[in-house]
């Protein structure tokens, strides 16, 4: 079984996780830029983070046989912090990089005017860079936030097939299915979705434009949730082809629109037969 986790924050995870992910079938990931659990104090902190997502993290992933791409953006929460506003002027040069396959995570957190302005500005940056967009939907007031998200996408003229609306649940999946956008589901131990509810949604809405992710980060989360969904799908009667579609081909279908996905042999590190992160 091969798995592409389309949303996971590997900078927050250990090399043990990379080992376990590889053993479970994960061969590719996309890491979207998000907040650190602790507010950043300025633009430089973002740039170092972006540089990590373009340098150290893909290198680290490659040591464990996993291809790492990223999505870059000013996240919704910190869109409200004036100290971070100038990230938007730095983003265009970052969006040119080879391993950047989307703009994200963008969208709403607390549904403020600042969040909306930054969301719209980043939809425009994505259009300029010819990249698809990964949109986070809020934890609080999710249904209203998702509806507003779809309105903004429509108003900005972004084609729905270029947009992945993430963190959906039973109450928000229907409107996104109708919109033509891709649908993302984050499978968490306690919150968001669980594997059995995910299978029920796949039975009701089908496997087209459906993406399943672990969204694993520094909080209570599990990078193997993608594999658990795959197993739950098989146990409930989905075929191996269905699983391959949801957990491999759909992420490629969405992020492949960037023209920058590179899923060839993982080469970094293999060169030096390094099976661990070397400490020089």
């Amino acid at each position: 079984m091969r798995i592409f986790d389309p949303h996971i924050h590997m900078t927050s995870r250990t090399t043990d996780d990379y080992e376990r992910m590889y053993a479970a079938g994960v061969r590719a990931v996309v890491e979207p830029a998000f907040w650190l659990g602790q507010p950043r104090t300025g633009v430089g902190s973002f740039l170092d983070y972006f540089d990590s997502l373009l340098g150290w993290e893909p290198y680290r992933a490659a040591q464990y046989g996993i291809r790492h791409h990223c999505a870059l953006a000013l996240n919704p929460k910190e869109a409200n912090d004036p100290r971070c506003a100038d990230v938007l002027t730095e983003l265009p040069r970052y969006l040119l990089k080879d391993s950047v396959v989307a703009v994200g995570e963008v969208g709403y957190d607390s549904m403020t005017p600042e969040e909306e302005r930054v969301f719209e500005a980043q939809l425009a940056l994505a259009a300029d860079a010819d990249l698809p967009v990964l949109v986070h939907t809020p934890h609080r007031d999710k249904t209203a936030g998702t509806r507003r998200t779809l309105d903004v996408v429509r108003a900005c003229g972004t084609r729905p097939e270029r947009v992945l609306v993430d963190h959906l649940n039973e109450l928000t999946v229907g409107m996104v299915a109708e919109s033509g956008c891709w649908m993302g589901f984050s499978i968490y131990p306690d919150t968001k979705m669980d594997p059995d509810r995910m299978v029920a949604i796949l039975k009701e809405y089908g496997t087209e434009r459906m993406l399943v992710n672990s969204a694993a980060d520094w909080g209570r989360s599990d990078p193997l949730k993608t594999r658990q969904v795959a197993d739950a799908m098989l146990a409930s009667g989905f075929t191996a082809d269905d699983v391959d579609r949801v957990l491999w081909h759909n992420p490629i279908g969405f992020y492949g629109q960037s023209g920058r996905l590179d899923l060839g042999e993982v080469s970094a590190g293999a060169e030096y037969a390094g099976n661990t992160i070397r400490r020089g």
Partner: protein
Amino acid sequence: MNEWTAQALRQVREDPEAVHRLFPRAERLGGPDARAALLALVDAGAVAALYRDGDAGERLAILRALPGLDLGPAALPLVEDALRTNDARLVAAALGPYGSRWLDDHAFRHGVLKCVFMSIPLASVDGLDRRFDAELARMLADHAAERRAAGREVPQDVLERL
């Protein structure tokens, strides 16, 4: 050279600033030699800026291109930066012909020792025979002693230098 590269080179000849938006995409759109071709058209300041703003692939391309760029010691800070990373590709590239030519003895010796720690074959260090000295021999011998004390193997390419 493909059409994209030919056009990119024309643009940079007309406006050197154009290199900053072309260089990041050059390998993807222009092929494996496009980045080196662009670097040959710009000055040391631009090379340093491209390195500073570059991802791992861009930095690697710059380090590998340095020997052909005729910059004198001006690009040494880039090599020193690469030697501070934990990316074996960058460290190995930093100890190519340019680093071997310009690094001072202390930095060169530590670069070599870092290769040993990162399992980068010493055969890939440019000019190691020429720059090998008693102090580097002592450092490698101490490293070998530390490995043996821990019950670990000493890499063959280190043993050969003792």
